[in-house]
């Protein structure tokens, strides 16, 4: 666990009053597997004197935070109605078949997590999909293997 870095971030929060959600984003980006582990939340709770239940309530509310470990790469398929008009269903199905995954799950090898993504404001380019921070537009099932293969570890 990146204890020191997390500690440093919390210290900055205390000094600058940086907002909680931003702090949680930063911590999550630090932690391997893109999540907020219980020990880290406990540490935040202790340091900032926010009751652990309140912190957990907040963290669990937002879809960008994960409380359980995720894969190395996060596949987010935009699930807002405009994207669902296009390829959403077949994309989810194809990803499911290729990686043996359904929404919210992580592959056994810990490589990929599949998540629904709320509207990215790229509706004119539907269907939209993100892998980590890379955005793909007008995605079709045929392009999918190629996209995913670039993330598969050698």
């Amino acid at each position, binding site marked *: 666990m990146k204890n020191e870095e997390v500690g440093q971030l919390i210290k900055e929060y205390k000094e600058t009053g940086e907002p909680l959600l931003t702090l949680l984003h930063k911590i999550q980006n630090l932690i391997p597997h893109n999540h907020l582990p219980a020990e880290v939340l406990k540490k935040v709770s202790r340091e900032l004197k926010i009751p*652990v*239940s309140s912190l957990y309530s907040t963290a669990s509310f937002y879809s960008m935070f994960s409380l359980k470990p995720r894969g190395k790469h996060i596949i987010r398929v935009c699930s807002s109605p405009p994207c669902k008009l296009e390829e959403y269903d077949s994309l989810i199905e194809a990803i499911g078949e290729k990686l043996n995954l359904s929404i919210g799950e992580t592959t056994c090898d810990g490589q990929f997590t599949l998540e629904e993504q709320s509207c990215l404001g790229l509706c004119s380019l539907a269907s939209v999909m993100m892998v980590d921070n890379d955005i793909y537009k007008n995605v079709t099932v045929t392009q999918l293997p190629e996209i995913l293969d670039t993330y598969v570890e050698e």
Partner: protein
Amino acid sequence: MEKLFLKINGNEIEVEPGLTVLQVAKSFGIDIPTLCHHDQLSPIGACRLCVVETKQGTLQPACTLPATQGLEVETESPRVVEARKFILNLLFAERNHYCMFCEASGDCELQNMGYRYGIDHFAFSPYQTKFPTDFSHKYILLEHNRCILCRRCIRACSDLAGHYVLGMVNRGAHTMLSPDMESPLKASSCVSCGACAQVCPTGSLADKIGAFRGKADEMTKTKSVCANCSVGCGILAFTKANHLIKIWGEWESPVNHGILCELGRFSPLNEKRKRVLQPIIRQEGRREVISYQDAIKKATQKLKEAKNPGGIISPKTTNEALEAFNILFSTSLQSKNTGLMESYNEKAVKLSADGCLEDILIANAVVLYKVDPSTSHGVVASWVKKAVTKGAYLYIVTDEENSLSFYATETFKTSEADKLVNTLENSKKVVVILNPQVESADLEILKKVKAVFLPLYKSANSLGAIKKGLNGFFEKSDVALIVASDFSGDGNLLASLQDVSYLIVISNFVSPLTERANLIIPSATWLETSGTFTNLEGKTQDVSSIMEAPEGVKTDKAIIEDFMKALG
């Protein structure tokens, strides 16, 4: 203030500003149904059952709708009733609300609403998802299948009790009640105050001991005062056939406003100690049951014959019993050799002229001076947590672990206690909570602090006893009378009795003290006694007997009066 005129169900109503429609309706005897709302909790408008129809034709929740000039609402219009039925149908279908296997059936607010609105079947098929049931906790059962997510428990746990154990996890249809971070209740930071179970409208949070033992309206309810520490919390005890079923915090109590601690709410239900039920005499190494009259005769005879009769009384007995005890010794026995089962630093007692518990809630700074109220005076700990969440600073002086250190702004070693004086210099309102057994050196430091002082006496009537001049053990005695209540007598007490050749003990339970006694007389517990207690603030409150004492068992006061009668 300008008066407001509004119309509810066509009736002109005149009210003061600042109220919600629900409050106004209630004060005029108009019953608007509620579920997520609870009179003690701040309204959140979540369940939408209390909707009323405005003149403009909108449905607004009465619990959060402010009463404004000229407002006109209907509380049972056809649209309102239709909406309420639908909301009930949605609630019934969200989780498992089959009444016939629920503990709360008969006391359930959801069920009552179903009856009130004639829900004779579920309009939606209920979900068949099984939610977890958490049996882990010693006293509290958390049954997610019955939860309607009204958040009363969360608000009680946080806003009323200050513990912040319960929260909501996830969102939307996946929202769940969660202790800490979805921990089992037992492993969570729950302090077993039980406020959650008291406010739960359904069978989702229940007190395990009282569960499945009948409906509340089949029980006798008695208001009284808790005897488990010196806070003097108001309680409402539920009994059935002289069995104690459950204890609630009394909302009306000016001391605790409905909040209790583990000791207050659950320990009396969990009483495992063995009662003394008959007078017992020990002669020539043998124990014999004797009659009450013989016991009184024997005891008074021994006391009369004594050179130096002595008496020690429990700080858990009523002011009336203490009074009788004082008269017994001063008048009937002509002895000044009396004492209390506890001893306090008189100077600490004097320090606390006018402190009260409410001061904690409005303090800017709170000091815990060599004291940890969590296990002994739970409601004080609650109040401290509430003060801190409202923004008060908390300073702890201790060399040991303190269960409230999470909330502390700073913790001082006892050797650094004098640092407090400077730290608190700029705080407007300071409350120092201290152990009344502190040394005089501590008091020298504390005297320099401008503050309200609250000594945490151990027992329900410690202050009452001190005020009657009782404090600490007697010096020396040959025949001694101990009115023990439920005290078992610690090593110090037993040591102080070394020279006593004949020991008479009036006690609730079998204990090392009764083992040492030559004559034991059974007494009624506080649950079986009426009278008054004086709490740590100096408030004298009425204690009512909640249960009947076992046959032939009398209260301390009655026994002492029988002593006086026998002594003439």
